[in-house]
């Protein structure tokens, strides 16, 4: 159990730092290297390291699958929403200049919102993919059929039957 103790303590210390660094990268994407994608991946990896050390069930309690799916769509909708808001205020699609009073302030606001949307979706996608891979190992142990998503099972069995 000594390995687990050291890993758990260090992970608990590191996860807030990782999240803080991810937020720093996200919001300083304008001034240095960084931006939405990098920040999303780093933020997602904080949750992944939590799932690796503390087990998949605890990670699922921390961030349930429903919230993940909502976050996944929310980022994309935010990005498209910024585009439509620009159209609503009289400019073209994704024309950031008309979002605020000043042209440059509008660009800053637009870029900030857009990168936020990108970061949210990328983070949620990384976590979803990792949970899917890790969860498969558990359901393989149980040696039972997957009954939440029946259609892929039906397709694969029918394909190997008719091939």
């Amino acid at each position, binding site marked *: 159990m000594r390995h687990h103790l050291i890993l758990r303590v260090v992970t608990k210390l590191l996860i807030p730092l990782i999240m803080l660094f991810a937020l720093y990268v996200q919001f300083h994407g304008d*001034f*240095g*290297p960084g931006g939405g*994608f990098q920040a999303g991946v780093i933020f997602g990896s904080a949750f992944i390291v939590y799932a690796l050390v503390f087990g998949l069930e605890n990670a699922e309690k921390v961030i349930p699958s429903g919230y993940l799916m909502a976050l996944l769509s929310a980022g994309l909708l935010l990005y498209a929403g910024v585009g439509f808001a620009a159209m609503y205020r009289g400019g073209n699609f994704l024309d950031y200049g008309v979002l605020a009073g000043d042209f440059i302030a509008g660009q800053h606001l637009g870029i900030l919102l857009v990168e936020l949307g990108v970061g949210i979706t*990328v983070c949620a*996608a990384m976590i979803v*993919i990792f949970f*899917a*891979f890790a969860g*498969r190992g558990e359901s*393989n142990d149980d040696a039972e059929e997957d009954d939440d998503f029946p259609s*892929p099972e039906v397709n*694969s069995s029918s394909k*190997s039957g008719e*091939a």
Partner: protein
Amino acid sequence: MVWLGHFNYWIVIFLMMAGFYTVIARGNLIKKIVGLNIFQTSVFLLYITMGKVKGGTAPIVPEGGGEGLAYSNPIPHVLILTAIVVGVATTSLGLALIVRIREAYGTIEEDEIQEIEDKSS
């Protein structure tokens, strides 16, 4: 030497061919995905080396406004940023397919899968 200016293209072509060989010659499916990754990163290297300007610096305007500084071209960086993220999406979907193939056929070697398909057809 005259050809030293093309050194980056040689490295890129060698890496590209190594990835290509891994994809078509090795039977194991995970090896194929790794080879595809090598292929993709060699293409990124091609674009980035084409975007570099001799004596340039990173395309970030320093404090106080840099006049007369030579920057490396930011357009390939943007393309490659998108390409890297698309590459990880492709890799994750490919790996998920490999897991399902393993569950359906019991193996991830390409010729064994071909045998099973031929036997059941």
